[in-house]
């Protein structure tokens, strides 16, 4: 039956189970920000707690620490997760970006080596895509991996690497064939961050914490078995990372629905003195969050029915990043004079959470491929408009 928008008894059961577990286990006080050392440790511990409840990554097969759940189950879990105001997932680069491609391209040994520790929160992953000269134009990467015996020797410099300041591992693409132009000659390699020849330097973000880092590879030696897929296949694997599930997994709709709910509560508290025109903006936040949720269920249904997701991931990314930004801008406007207050200010109340969310939302249109790049991708790959001179590569962080 088409357009059957009701949950099955099994799905309701999963929701009830998740809700009960989260109510017992979610920390009663918010953790420190995961962009700093203390908060990172707290979030790492939370990942382990999740894993003990078998909630680490429910869509993965059981042997890798999952529950073999499907995408609709995942959305239900995420709804409960955000409803419970559970902490951010510090291992999202591993769980949501690397995990699916490891599943697709990894050897049996690689899957057994990396996935269970990822699901268990024992190894936290950072992405290492961008370089100083390769941002939106990712195919311009210059870092190299030179084969010597059973090892690759890595040289180069990655930057804007989320989580790298405190993480254990990173994944990225390296040039293995210097004669291969742009997209060719790139290889996808997994690198431990606490390793000879790997130097990590945190970069303070606008909020003052080292939310991302630069990574210097100074003749770092890793075994050939750290290569994911074949030599020269790196571009294709990186594209896949950006591809099918990513549009669904990177940002759950529940996150924005929870934020829209908090915004409505803020509106209800502040409305007496508020500009009446703000009501329309609050309502827009709710509508957009609902639309994103509905579209995500639609996409999940299509994938379960055997469909695929391609350039739709770009539509998604534009939509959630812009809705998130508008939502937080509205909250800042509503908060008025309190908007600038830090948690140490006696009058701050819940304002600092909004401020933190606002600053985070400002990054949305930039990371994971700027929205300008995404719009170009939509125009060329969905609408069929002609490419301008240069060949386009992959654009994501």
């Amino acid at each position, binding site marked *: *039956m*088409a*357009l*059957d*928008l*009701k*949950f099955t008894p099994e*799905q309701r059961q999963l*929701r009830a189970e998740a809700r009960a577990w989260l109510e017992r286990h979610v920390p009663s006080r918010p953790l420190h920000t995961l962009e700093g050392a203390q908060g990172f440790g707290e979030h790492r511990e939370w990942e382990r707690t999740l894993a003990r409840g078998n909630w680490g990554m429910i869509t993965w097969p059981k042997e890798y620490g999952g529950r073999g759940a499907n995408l*609709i189950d995942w959305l239900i879990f*995420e*709804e*409960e997760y*955000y*409803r419970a105001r559970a902490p951010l997932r510090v291992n999202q680069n591993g769980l949501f970006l690397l995990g699916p491609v490891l599943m697709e391209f990894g050897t049996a040994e690689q899957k057994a080596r990396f996935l269970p520790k990822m699901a268990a929160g024992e190894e936290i992953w950072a992405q290492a895509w961008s370089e100083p000269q390769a941002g939106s134009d990712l195919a311009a990467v210059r870092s190299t991996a030179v084969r010597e015996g059973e090892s690759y020797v890595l040289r180069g410099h990655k930057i804007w690497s989320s989580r790298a300041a405190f993480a254990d591992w990173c994944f990225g693409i390296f040039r293995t064939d210097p004669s291969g132009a742009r997209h060719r000659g790139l290889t996808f390699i997994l690198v431990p961050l606490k390793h000879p020849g790997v130097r990590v330097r945190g970069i303070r973000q606008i909020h003052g914490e080292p939310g991302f880092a630069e990574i210097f590879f100074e003749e770092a030696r890793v075994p050939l078995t750290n290569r994911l897929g074949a030599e020269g296949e790196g571009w294709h694997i990186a594209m896949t990372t950006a591809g099918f599930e990513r549009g669904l997994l990177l940002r759950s*709709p*529940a*996150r924005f*629905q*929870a934020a*829209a*709910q908090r915004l*409505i509560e803020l*509106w*209800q508290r502040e409305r007496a003195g508020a500009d009446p025109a703000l*009501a*329309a903006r609050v*309502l827009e936040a*709710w*509508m*957009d969050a*609902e*639309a*994103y*949720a*509905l*579209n995500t*269920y*639609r996409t*999940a*249904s*299509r994938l379960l*029915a055997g469909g695929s997701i391609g350039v*739709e991931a770009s*539509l998604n990314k*534009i*939509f959630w990043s812009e809705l998130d930004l508008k939502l937080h801008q509205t909250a800042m406007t509503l908060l008025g004079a309190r908007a600038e207050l830090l948690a140490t200010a006696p009058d701050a109340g819940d304002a600092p959470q909004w401020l933190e969310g606002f600053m985070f939302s400002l990054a949305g249109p930039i990371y994971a491929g700027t929205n*300008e790049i*995404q*719009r*170009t991708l*939509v*125009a060329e790959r*969905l*609408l*069929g*408009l*002609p*490419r*301008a001179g240069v060949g386009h590569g992959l654009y994501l962080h």
Partner: protein
Amino acid sequence: MDFTFTDEQRMMSSAFRALSEELCAPEQLRAVFEFRDEAAAERWLRLADLGLFGVLLPDASGGMGLEDADFVLLAEEAGRAALPEPLIEQAGVAAPALYELASDARAARLLEGVARGKVRIAVAHPLNPYANTPHGVTHWLLSGDAAIHLLEAWQVKPTAQPSIDAGRRLFGIALDANAPEPLASGSAARTIAARIANRGALYTAAQCLGLAERMLALSCEYAKAREQFGSPIGSYQAIKHELASVAVKLEFARPVVYAAVTRAADTDAQALAAISHAKLAATDAAELAARTALQVHGAMGYSWEVDLHFYMKRAWALAGAWGDRSFHARRLESLVLGGAVALGPDATFHRSA
């Protein structure tokens, strides 16, 4: 939980698309807009031949016995084609309302005629003061909030209200003091009137999806063909990004409309919120598509000779039909910000169903 359409539903909508592409080819629409339309009677018959007027009526009444989830894709196609005939009002709004009113013989005896297109109905409602009226209208369904009247055409004196969209034949109508007994009044009428408003808004929204897609497609074609500074204008990012924004707006309006259609017969706060959201999201998408399409077409788009204006005018018209922005935004605001609708990550889908 399954947010996909069935193969049967898609097949039916592609059959209608093929027909509407023939019936509403640009030269046909041009004839309508230039008041030299000679194909109206044939269009109505062809729609009837495909069984479209009876989609939402049961087999026993000569219909197809299908549901709102089946009809929504047809409404989308009607929008894409800028179909001049009020298929939506006849088949999507009036037919299910008359079926609900069929305990009254005056309604019951019309059902088969409605399904076959012999009976031609115009629907007026406080949210739809200017009824899109078929050629040769035989009956008027006049819905107030608490009384529903069915009148034969000779019993009313409609006032023509010409529209910028020549594909919509609008008439205003007032009930006079000698009107016969209503088909329904009181709470029964209230529920049916609410469903009339629901379906009017939902299928107007669905048409807007089709219109937005059509205008986006026309713009992309034009942007690929039109060259300036030695390249197709569609190769420039200024054009690409505007059109991509239309694609985003449309992509995220679509599931809102589809989800709301499953609530077409419901009148609880969550359903009314979903329906107002659908109307707002779809008309916003169509209006952005129209505005962007015109800009991409430049002066060409501003000229009568280019087809764009048929679709653009329909988008403008539908923005105000079956509840304008003010109505739906205010209703949604009072429901969502006023606390009548459950909020939060687990509240999207109707819990009690």
